[in-house]
């Protein structure tokens, strides 16, 4: 399929100094390997002091940032790459910054008409200034239980706790603030947990089949990366109508947030079939157990060909 065109030279960025370094390295290796299988020249590179010099030397056609967490997803690495005049696959810096901040992303998609669980986003300093327990009591009174406490940014469920009893809320806050200065506390929606990946290989965004996630406990770090803990259903066990609604929600979030090339939206589908937007990822995980590759394979895609199509589309854009 690519015999006529010269092989693109791609630098896959993975690693970095975030809490999700390990996951990022695994994602990076998988994508690099898949792209190489299509004949692309791929260099896997960490985000470190050598990066700018290496990029100058390598002169890649494209950089694919597979960085999870912190500077990798918040747009700053993309800003730097733009400064260096390098073409980057995926969402631009400004939109990444919005998607990365979960409270802001929720606000944006809510304005676009999507359902998202009611929430508050509070910095640690505010608890100090106003008195922690007064705020916690008000949160429980207003949002009810159960609640989900999560860092306002970051992935892999790090620092995330499902709180079912008020006495567990303080500890959940402490755990959350170990990862982020701002906590997002939202009403927990009961229902089917699904993730929908959206891709754009040049003809506009389309949704891959929803992946349904079933765990015997929270979909936490172990459930995500220890094969066997979680059962996945692809496509999700939803009626055609609800499946369509779910895909529509992911496409709407992708559009409302101005995302490009690929994204993954995490949703809960309640008993009425309403998809509730939880968060979106501009650099979704690409590990052996990650959701986007599962959805793509279930839809019949060869991962190498699919990733290559994303690269080619970016280069043709």
């Amino acid at each position, binding site marked *: 399929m690519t015999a006529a065109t010269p092989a693109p030279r791609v630098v896959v960025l993975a690693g970095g100094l975030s809490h999700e370094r390990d996951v990022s390295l695994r994602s990076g290796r998988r994508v690099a390997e898949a792209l190489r299988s299509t004949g692309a020249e791929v260099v896997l590179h960490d985000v470190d002091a050598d990066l700018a010099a290496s990029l100058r030397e390598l002169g890649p056609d494209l950089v694919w940032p597979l960085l999870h967490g912190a500077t990798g997803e918040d747009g700053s690495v993309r800003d730097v790459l733009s400064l260096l005049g390098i073409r980057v696959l995926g969402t631009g810096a400004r939109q990444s910054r919005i998607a990365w901040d979960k409270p802001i992303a929720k606000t944006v998609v809510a304005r676009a008409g999507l359902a998202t669980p009611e929430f508050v986003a509070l910095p640690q300093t505010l608890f100090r200034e106003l008195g922690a327990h007064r705020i916690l009591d008000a949160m429980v009174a207003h949002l009810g239980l159960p609640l989900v406490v999560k860092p306002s940014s970051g992935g892999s469920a790090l620092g995330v706790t499902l709180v079912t009893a008020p006495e567990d809320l303080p500890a959940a806050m402490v755990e959350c603030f170990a990862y982020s200065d701002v906590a997002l506390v939202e009403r927990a929606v009961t229902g089917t947990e699904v993730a929908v990946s959206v891709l754009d290989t040049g003809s506009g965004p389309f949704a891959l089949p929803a992946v349904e996630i079933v765990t015997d406990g929270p979909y936490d770090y172990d459930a995500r990366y220890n094969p066997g803990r979680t059962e996945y259903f692809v496509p999700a066990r939803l009626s055609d109508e609800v499946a369509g609604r779910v895909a529509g929600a992911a496409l709407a979030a992708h559009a409302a947030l101005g995302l490009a090339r690929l994204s993954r939206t995490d949703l809960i589908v309640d008993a009425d079939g309403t998809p509730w937007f939880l968060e979106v990822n501009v650099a979704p995980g690409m590990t052996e157990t990650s959701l986007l590759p599962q959805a793509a394979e*279930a839809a*019949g895609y060869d991962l190498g060909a699919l990733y290559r199509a994303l690269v080619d589309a970016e280069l043709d854009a």
Partner: protein
Amino acid sequence: MTPQPGPDRVTVGQPPSAAAGTRLDPWLGSYAERTHGMKASEIRALFAVANRPEVVSLAGGMPFLDGLPLDTLSRLAADVVAKRGLQALQYGSGQGDETLREQILDVMALEAISAHPDDVVVTTGSQQALDYVTRIFCDPGDVVVAEAPSYVGALGVFRAYQADVVHVPIDASGLIPEALEQTLARLKADGRRVKFLYTIPNFHNPAGVSLSVERRPRILEICRRYGVLVVEDNAYGLLGFDGDPTPAMRSMDDEGVLYLGTFSKTFAPGYRVGWVVAPHAVREKLVLASESAILCPSNAAQIAISTYLATCDWRGQIKQYREMYRERRDAMVGALSEHLPDCSWTVPDGGFYTWVRLPEGLDAKEMLPRAVTARVAYVPGTAFYFDGQGADHMRLSFCYPTPERIREGVRRLATVVSGEAELVELFGTAGHPDTEQVQAPSPDLA
């Protein structure tokens, strides 16, 4: 080409039926019972950041090798192949190279051990000796008694063989004999089968303390009385900062003690050569265990170590290590005094580690993400217990970072601890019990 989902574009895989989920592991039903407890740990993932140069890792137990005479060692390695290649590259004895076993006696003589080369079984690091010992003694449910806290790598082996670990408290002079006796009496009354006491008498990992000379015969006597074997793990005994090495427990009892030694800390871990000294009947079982596991330890590695011992000033190397690690211990303890006055810690007289108690209510595991953000890493105390204790402690290693980096790491840690203390005070959370098993990083995290 623009792929679009649909059956006509299928290139790989079968579309799954909607009713059947996948757990991404077709062999899920085939694993042994002991495999099911293994978890993907976010703590372990956090350690992935620790090997970046921006992070001061006080987590790993990696010896600092920069002072090794690499020129000499490279000639030595070349000689191993040039002069003894046909032996070095061939299978060898399951018990280990005889010359090396004789030389190991010279090393152990520094700690007053007298033994016969036949008593020694060479292993792939003393970690493998630990594996063999547990394999030949422990059935699922058997009890291993160990210090509280204990070496995380040993706990992992005991867990793998489905043994149960019962911890015994220690103090500044090591294992407390009275507490050991009470524990053994209780276990006996409960009808539990205690297979051995696992102890690290010198410069304990992670606690940093040593078993006093006075207590050694008492511990041996108690174990003898209860019919409990002693497994003496002595990786650090020759790395004391002051005075001569303490006589090993094995030097006081050659029937009731299995002694584990290693070249990993006194020379270098890369060759992976350790050993176990055992009474003859046990040793026979160990050799059989070795043969069934690996046929024989690496001849090339053994001959390299043997040549090193025969031709290099290994005693001088150990002296050099002691001086270097003493300087780093001093840097660690000085920095702790300066920056973490609300913590308490042990001041080790040797080895690699200090054991730090956090201010009340702080949980070292929960604090770790904050530490990683601040570019410093340590091992949370829960890693060193079988039962979820230790949340209020952390192990700090001073072996690998330079004194300057140690001071910088502790300075960063101080901001982490104060930030966490403020948060805990704010939300009024005191350490809540956490039974989750914490895995330690691999020792190469520097």
